[in-house]
């Protein structure tokens, strides 16, 4: 089947999409967007997290056919040209990235959290990231990164100094 979907602001089209395939497969294998990672294909790890119509979802659990006429935003769509999103910058600076496999999903989940709750408490951060697994960092640096991004977003001046 054919799927028409807006991805990162651009209308995209894919042909010969298998009816049972996931949005994750569509993004990675057909639309050339390998940022979203495939680890578990069962919703457990969150490394495939993308926005679907502004809501973070596991793209491995969305059928490709379900995104017809909808909008998807992946980790590739967060940066503004060459300028990383504050969440991405904070992950790099806080040392929240080791092997990096979990990073795209965590960045999208954290990005959504800070859109909804600009100054989250630690329990709110933990709750928002409960669907994302990281095998490397032990999560502490990830929490640091989210706190740092929250501070920067609240005071963009400080970020550019």
């Amino acid at each position: 089947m054919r799927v028409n979907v807006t991805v990162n602001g651009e209308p995209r089209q894919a042909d010969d999409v298998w009816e049972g395939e996931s949005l994750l497969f569509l993004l990675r294998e057909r639309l050339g967007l390998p940022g979203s990672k495939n680890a578990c294909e069962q919703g457990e790890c969150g490394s495939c997290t993308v926005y679907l119509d502004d809501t973070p979802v596991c793209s491995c659990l969305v059928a490709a056919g379900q995104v017809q006429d909808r909008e998807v935003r992946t980790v590739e769509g967060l940066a503004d040209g060459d300028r990383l999103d504050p969440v991405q910058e904070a992950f790099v600076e806080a040392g929240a990235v080791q092997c990096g496999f979990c990073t795209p999903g965590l960045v999208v989940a954290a990005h959504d959290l800070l859109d909804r709750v600009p100054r989250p408490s630690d329990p709110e951060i933990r709750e928002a990231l409960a669907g994302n697994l990281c095998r490397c960092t032990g999560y502490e640096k990830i929490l640091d990164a989210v706190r740092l991004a929250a501070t920067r977003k609240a005071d963009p001046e400080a970020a550019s100094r």
Partner: protein
Amino acid sequence: MDFLRPDTLAEALALKAQRPDAVPIAGGTDVMVELNFDHRRPAALLDLTRIAELRSWDSAGGNGDGGTVRIGSGVPYTRIIDELGDRLPGLAMASRTVGSPQIRNRGTVGGNLGAASPAGDTHPVLLAGDATVEAASTRGTRLIPATEFYLGVKRHALEPDELITAVHVPVTRAPQQFAKVGTRNAMVIAVCSFAVALHPARQRVGAAVGSAAPTPRRASAAEEFLSAELTSANQWESPKPLLDSVKRRFGELVAEAANPIDDVRGSAAYRKHALSVLARRTLDWAWRDYSEKVT
């Protein structure tokens, strides 16, 4: 495989009548796992996410005690928590424990019912809270009490041409509680779960267990014991702290309602023990809450 994409409920029902073998897909959080792992190869998928009627709720049945909220089968957990938590405390509480934020953004009560897993978190709450499942086909619409919906492990009362269109959940300000046992706070399939609902207007208590029998089920003997106990002691009008003996007996009767198995998540004996603890504990929370509201 065909991918069917109806835009309206009428279209969806017509498609389901023509293609009873089509597997409905809402949030996909159960269906896609089965597809990704090749556990299921349906002849067709019937996507329900484009149907606006299924993605809304209404309180035409009344917002106060005695009213009913009709929740479209495709309303995701996140919206139930955010939009209905004040009126449907038990359902919101169970919804908060489902999976992770990503799963709650997508997963639906309709899908929980369609999967009819004995471990589904909304089932004990729907049973204890006297909810009704609305099913529709081109032949018409019918209401199935939650108590008659679950027929066996992953089997339910829908006919092959029917879709779940909504659940009707009684509104209440009276305390309701839900608790489940698992290895961590997020992303946990219940080892066992329990829901209790106080119905002061009818002087009744609802209680139901999950993940502890082939189907989710009411703990009827426990409900009757406690309801009679509370009524005979005039507890509804002037609540006093519950006797330990009453709480203990309630817990025992809840455990007796279960018929669990040994599996990787826990032994049958552990499940029964844990259920009696959950029952005592949640009853205690609900009753304290009720006592504070009344006095």
